[in-house]
């Protein structure tokens, strides 16, 4: 097992596009690490550069105590699962799983035995003689995992391995993957553009934008304390409320409502400073009776989320969204108060960066 360290990593494509632009990060030994970001931000590029499928333009990559920057992919002790799985269509499941062992010149009987073992662990019994074309998407995905496992790598690299599955199967596969990773304890880098997947699976998440790192932290940190407006709006299944605001009398004026200063920003802002105020809809409380330090507005839209409801409330010129329990759903047009906890709200400066820790 091994950690992965990239140092000022740059990958420039011919034509000058920088897929990865000066990235330094450490993936700890045994960690489940997610790379998250919008399409085109360089996640795949980073993964492929770590794998050695792309040549590094500058910077270094270490896996464990080895500098692998100039090493062939086959010598890096990695395994990769591609988005389309890249199973060899002309080989049986058993041959696919045991292919890495064939390259390692293991005897045929030994490697088929090994494939059998790996297949059992992935509930592929009875499918070993089939071709990939005769398998469902979920089964193919497990075969691809099996091939990766059979190679006994120090590092797993997954490029959106769940994105070709339908929604229900994806949830199942997600749980399966998490359990597998815990059992094997192999350092895993997992690329996804689905923030829910990243939050659910990862020990730590790196959020990228245009080839650069935006924030690196645990799912909780990333969710509760986004480093900037980009992360704030990208992470979370319901987008964060982000409203223009001004600092006034030690409080913050948002859409005509004066709210207490967020705890993290205390002492770090100047009177009259223009800022962006942010709070997650899940962290706001609605009340039908008058409340201090709260927005007052009418309910304009209500969207059912299952056990909860997402309300849009018009406050002055702006729109504030709040998530309430299903029992609490008010009727349309009702005037309600939305209370904000200082501990759960944030301020961002004019560059979009979070103010305070």
């Amino acid at each position, binding site marked *: 097992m091994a950690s992965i360290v990239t140092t000022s990593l740059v990958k420039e494509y011919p034509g000058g596009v920088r897929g990865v632009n000066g990235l330094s990060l450490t993936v700890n030994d045994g960690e489940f690490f997610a790379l998250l970001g919008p399409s085109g931000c360089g996640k795949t590029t980073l993964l492929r550069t770590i794998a050695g499928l792309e040549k590094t333009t500058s910077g270094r990559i270490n896996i464990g105590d080895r500098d692998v920057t100039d090493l062939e992919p086959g010598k890096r002790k990695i*395994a990769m699962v591609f988005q389309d799985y890249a199973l060899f269509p002309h080989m049986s499941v058993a041959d696919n799983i045991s292919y890495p062992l064939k*390259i390692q010149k293991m005897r045929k009987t030994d490697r088929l035995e090994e494939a059998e073992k790996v297949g059992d662990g992935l509930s592929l019994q009875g499918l070993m003689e089939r071709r990939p074309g005769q398998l469902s998407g979920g089964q193919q995905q497990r075969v691809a995992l099996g091939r990766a496992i059979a*190679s006994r790598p120090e590092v797993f690299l997954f490029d959106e391995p769940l994105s070709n599955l339908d929604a229900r199967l994806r949830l199942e596969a997600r749980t399966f993957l998490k359990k597998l990773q815990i059992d094997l304890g192999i350092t895993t880098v997992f690329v996804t553009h689905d923030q829910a997947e990243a939050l659910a699976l990862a020990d730590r998440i790196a959020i990228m934008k245009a080839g650069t790192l935006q924030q690196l932290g645990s799912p909780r940190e990333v969710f509760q304390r986004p480093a900037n407006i980009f992360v704030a709006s990208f992470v979370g299944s319901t987008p964060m409320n982000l409203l223009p605001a001004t600092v006034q009398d030690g409080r913050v004026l948002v859409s005509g409502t004066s709210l207490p200063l967020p705890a993290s920003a205390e002492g770090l802002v100047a009177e009259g400073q223009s800022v962006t105020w942010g709070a997650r809809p899940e962290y706001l409380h609605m009340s039908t009776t008058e409340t201090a330090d709260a927005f007052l507005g009418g309910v304009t839209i209500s969207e059912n989320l299952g056990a909860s409801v997402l309300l849009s409330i018009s406050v002055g010129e702006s729109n504030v969204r709040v998530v309430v329990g299903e029992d609490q759903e008010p009727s349309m047009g009702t005037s309600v108060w939305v209370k904000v906890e200082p501990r759960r709200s944030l301020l961002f400066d004019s560059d979009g960066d979070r103010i305070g820790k």
Partner: protein
Amino acid sequence: MNSMQATADSSARPALMRHFLGLMGKTLFIALVLAFFVIPVLWLVFAPFDAHPSLTIKAPQFTFHNFEVLFQTPGAIASLGNSIILALGTMILVLVLGALASYALSRVKIPGRDILLYTLLLLSSIITGTAAMVPTFLLMVKLGLIDSQLGVILILGSGIMPTVIFILKDFMDSIPKSYEESARIYGAKPLRILWDVGVPLARPGLATIAVWAVVQVWGNFLVPYILLQTPSRTPAAVVIYTFYTEGGQPNLALISAFSLLFSIPVIAMYFFVNTRYGFRFYGGIKS
């Protein structure tokens, strides 16, 4: 009412007439086309089984005797063996060299690659066996490859090689790269990747090329005619012109039986490919 019926009739009659004429014309056309293409071939079907084959097509006095004579004629069966040697030799040559080259050309951007490919194709289409027969003959004399089957294989192989590379590259291009990348991640070296992934996945292309190369060589008359002299090395396409009776007349019994035997492999191969992949696909296979 009467007049109405009359107009209806008068408009229907020419239409019917036209339809009838159209049908006649169509049938006549098809009959003529079939006659044109079938009549010459009939000789190949009847004469081999005729006890007294002549140049006229006629219902045969059925016999297998002609084939017996054929098997006893020195050199006849051996010449088919020579055809097989030339065809398979050329096929293996172009498959191995063509697969290696097209794979590398498909995967690595060598500067000027596309121009190179088109230039080669252009060269192979303008430097034909007929146009280059003089220097080819002289070259083989100088290299000591005159009257050698290897020489014929090299000449025929080099002539079709550009086309082989061109077609195979297209097949190689269509193989998704992630297969090779996974093999590479597990430590496979390039030759190994080509063998484990490239070759199996390009199999339809390789099969096309194999059949095509065989058909090309099998029917080629000019190159072996110019380059080979020893009768025992000569392929069927040339040997067929040496079957004469003692009276100096073409030995029709022999020639007809031999023609049939010689034609069947390519016809079979062609229709095998047809039923397997459809003709559209392989329309350009033979030239």
